[in-house]
Each structure stands twice: as structure tokens, then as C-alpha cells.
């Protein structure tokens, strides 16, 4: 009997397998995935909003594709991301601490990065551990770097990962959207507002 692999918060173990190699496939347009299970996009929206409202440190990690205003679409997405962040801030309790931490580029910044001000895809755990981040969303990170980073996070932390992907989605995240636009990010913010007060912050 084959056991279906699930993309779950870790720590899984050092060097976890890529989810694709474990049979996880990407959603089609109009869909998302939760733990590797393909779901309608609205279901993923609701689940992502719940994760943000539940987390002690709900965090958005915007990557270079949205941090730099290299075209009009990117600038619009940046506005939408800021709106999502402000919405999360408004909808959570004072005991929760939302964060917006950039991934300005992918250079392996040795010998150190400042985990309070940035995340680096080559050692994302430093930022997650330091700030005790328990739910995060990647947006505007190139696919290859996102997959690398999401896998490292799954391997070494218990952080719940969400990918707001502009292409075909990320199987290495615990929850993934695809074809991200500014409108889609705004819709996620609406979901957060809609569920405000109905989700208990996590205890542990």
C-alpha cells in the first residue's frame, strides 16, 4: 500500500525530500493545495487566513520580485502586500506579533545576516528561529529560491509555510496559491477580515 506523503510543518529532518519527488503535484488554475491535497482556491484562501489569525508571529516574506518596482504590476503587488500586512495587524490580538520581513536578494550573505531585518533563502531558519515565526507567506520570490528555502524551513522548523506564487504554485509549501496577482492578495486580506474574531490564537 502506498502512503500519501503530506507536506506538513516540520521539523521533518535534515534534508527533507522535495515534495514533488514524493508525488505531490501542483494545482491547476483556480485551485490551490493544502498539505499537498489539491483544493479549490477559495478553500485555500480560508485556510491561509486562518493560519495568519492563529499564528503567534504571522509573517510575510516579500521577495525581490515585489520589493523592487521593476514594473507596474510589481508595484501594485507591493501595495497589496502592504495592505494584507496592515489587515493582519488590525485583525489579531495584542498578544500576536505580525512581521513583514524582506528577502531583498538571494546572495548567500556570509558571514552573517541580521535576522531581525531580513531573511536569506540560503539560511531562512535563522530568521524563523530568531523571531519565533510560526506561520509565514512567501511572495515575490523566484521559484527556485522559494523551493530551496521552503524545503529548508520544513526540514528544520515547525513554521507553517504559505506560498503566494505568481506561476504554477509551490509543492514544498504547506499551502500554495498559484497565478498570484494584486487582486488575489487583496482577496486574501478580505478573508482575513472576514474571519476576524472567529479564530483563536494558538496556545503553544
Amino acid at each position, binding site marked *: 500500500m502506498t502512503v500519501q506523503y503530506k507536506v506538513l510543518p516540520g521539523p521533518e529532518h535534515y534534508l527533507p525530500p522535495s515534495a514533488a519527488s514524493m508525488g505531490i503535484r501542483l494545482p491547476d488554475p483556480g485551485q490551490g493545495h493544502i498539505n499537498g491535497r489539491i483544493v479549490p482556491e477559495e478553500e485555500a484562501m480560508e485556510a491561509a487566513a486562518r493560519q495568519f489569525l492563529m499564528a503567534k508571529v504571522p509573517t510575510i516574506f516579500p521577495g525581490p520580485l515585489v520589493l*523592487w518596482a521593476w514594473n507596474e504590476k*510589481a508595484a501594485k503587488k507591493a501595495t497589496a502586500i502592504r495592505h494584507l500586512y496592515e489587515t493582519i495587524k488590525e485583525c489579531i490580538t495584542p498578544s500576536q506579533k505580525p512581521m513583514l520581513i524582506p528577502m531583498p536578494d538571494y546572495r548567500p550573505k556570509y558571514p552573517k545576516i541580521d535576522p531581525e531585518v531580513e531573511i536569506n533563502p540560503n539560511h531562512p531558519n535563522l530568521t524563523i528561529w530568531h523571531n519565533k515565526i510560526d506561520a509565514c507567506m512567501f511572495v515575490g520570490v523566484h521559484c527556485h529560491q522559494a523551493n530551496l528555502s521552503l524545503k529548508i524551513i520544513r526540514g528544520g522548523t515547525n513554521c507553517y509555510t504559505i506560498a503566494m506564487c505568481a506561476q504554477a504554485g509551490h509543492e514544498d509549501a504547506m499551502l500554495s496559491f498559484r497565478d498570484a496577482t494584486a487582486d488575489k492578495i487583496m482577496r486574501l486580506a478580505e478573508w482575513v477580515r472576514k474571519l476576524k474574531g472567529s479564530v483563536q490564537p494558538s496556545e503553544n
Partner: protein
Amino acid sequence: MSLERIKIAPEMFDIMPPEYQDLVQKATYGNESRGWKDIGTSKELIEEHSLCAGCPESMAFRYILASLPNPEDTVMVGSTGCTSLVFPHVGIHNIHSLFGNQNAIASGLKRALTVRFPGRVKDVVVLAGDGATVDIGLDMTLQAWFRQEKFTTICFDNELYANTGGQESGLMQKGFVAKMAPIGKHFEKVRLPEIARESGCHYVVNCTVSKPNLIEKVVKNAIYIAREIGPTYLQLYTPCILEIGKNSMEGLQEMRDAEKPTERFAYREYISEPAKELIAEMTAKEKERKAALKKQLAGQNA
């Protein structure tokens, strides 16, 4: 022009790490007369580095990066070695190539950029250690020169393989004993500047990095000549203070000693005839520009 190309999304500006904010606000992108004098008053294109404290390679990096005439449209190609640990901290597009392959990568890159961006000047600059340039990569180095590829090759000559603990290099001096070359080198330092000249380089300079103004001049010449005419080569002494047993503060003196008239890094240059003409043209233009500026200033003050 170039500042336009690297705008941070306004909603994200406040969360960007300060070095990126500085990079778009205080770096000298787009300033044709940028040079070593900007160091200290503007944002440098190098962040903290991971070289040994006082390593002259860090000085060389700072002077070169301050002197590139067109940093926003420059791609640097590096190779494995101490230099490769610095590139992740550099605010210029760069490619890390497999050890020794840097001049082959740069050849393809320069050609591709010329086809892809026909209306724009794109400079390619190789920067690699002596091991990468003269030993493992010698084939690629020479073939690029034979083919007259239009880019600049810079060699950080520290006369050994520093990054791997001190093995013998072709550019090491005869008789030199290093940590991992205990019997002493049996043959002479390879005469790469002379070989570069014979291989078709139009501008070749052999010197140390003790003088920032000199580095600015040779880097600019090398890049302008490579753009217009053909390959250029700079061999810069950046002593590995760790391997030769010097303290952090002694790198500069080591270079000054090595550039005395009878020493191996006494200033030497070779300039081909077409390159001489180009330099003369550039000098005349620069004179004209300065005279016009002076006139303009005088007009303003009158």
C-alpha cells in the same frame, strides 16, 4: 538614468535593510566621473567582506568597484578563491564560474550581451586569483585573448593558492616556500604580463594596489579599451598577508616594498597602437569637458 532602474517599491522602502536603501539613494550609479574619491562620501558597491582582516584584496575590491565607469551595466565574472567570498557582498551583477572557466564564461557572456542589448554599452570584467588565471584557467585565459574577446581580465596576484591554504602557483616567486609547498618553488614566476601582450591584449598593466588613483586610471583605461578595441589585462599584487606571515596593518607596506623599481611589481605597462590612439582621444575629450565646466563655473560666478 540608472537610478531609475533600481527603485524600491514605495510601500516596501521602510522595511528594506539600510544598505539597500543606501544603495539606491547614495551610490554613484549613473555618474560617469565616479572614482576612488567617492569612497567615504557615497555608498560603496561593497558591503562588509569576509576576507582576513587587512587583506589587500579588500582594498583592491573597493578601488576597482569605485572606478568601474558603468557599474549598472557591468557584469563581473569571478572564480573560486578568496575573491569568490567577496562577490556575495558586491552590488554589481556577477557570475561565479567553475574554477578556471572565468574567461570562457566571460566570452560567451559578452557576446550574448552584445546581441541582446545592441544599443547599450555592457562591460564584462573578469576578476580572479592567480591560480584561476594562470594555472587551472590558463587555457581559457589565453584562448579569450587569442580570440580578441572584448572584455577586461583582472588577476589578483597573491602568488599562491590562498583560499586552500597556500599551495604553489605559477605566479609564485622562484624559491618561495608556502605552507603547502614546503620544498620551495623550482621555477620562475610565469611572465603573464608579457604573455598577455604576445597573446593580443591591447592594454596590460602590472602593479600593486597601493595607490587608489593609479588603480582608478588603469581600471578605466582597461575597460574603455576592452569596449572599443579588444582584450585587456591587469595583474595586481594583492599580497596574502596570512600566508606570508604579515600582520593586518602590514599589507600596504608589503605592496610598497614590492613596487620599488627593481622589484617584481614595479609599474609596467604595455599599450597597443590603437589603444594609444584611443587613450589620446579620451584624454582630449576629458580636457574639453573640464574646460567647458570651468567656463560654465566662471560664467556662474561672474
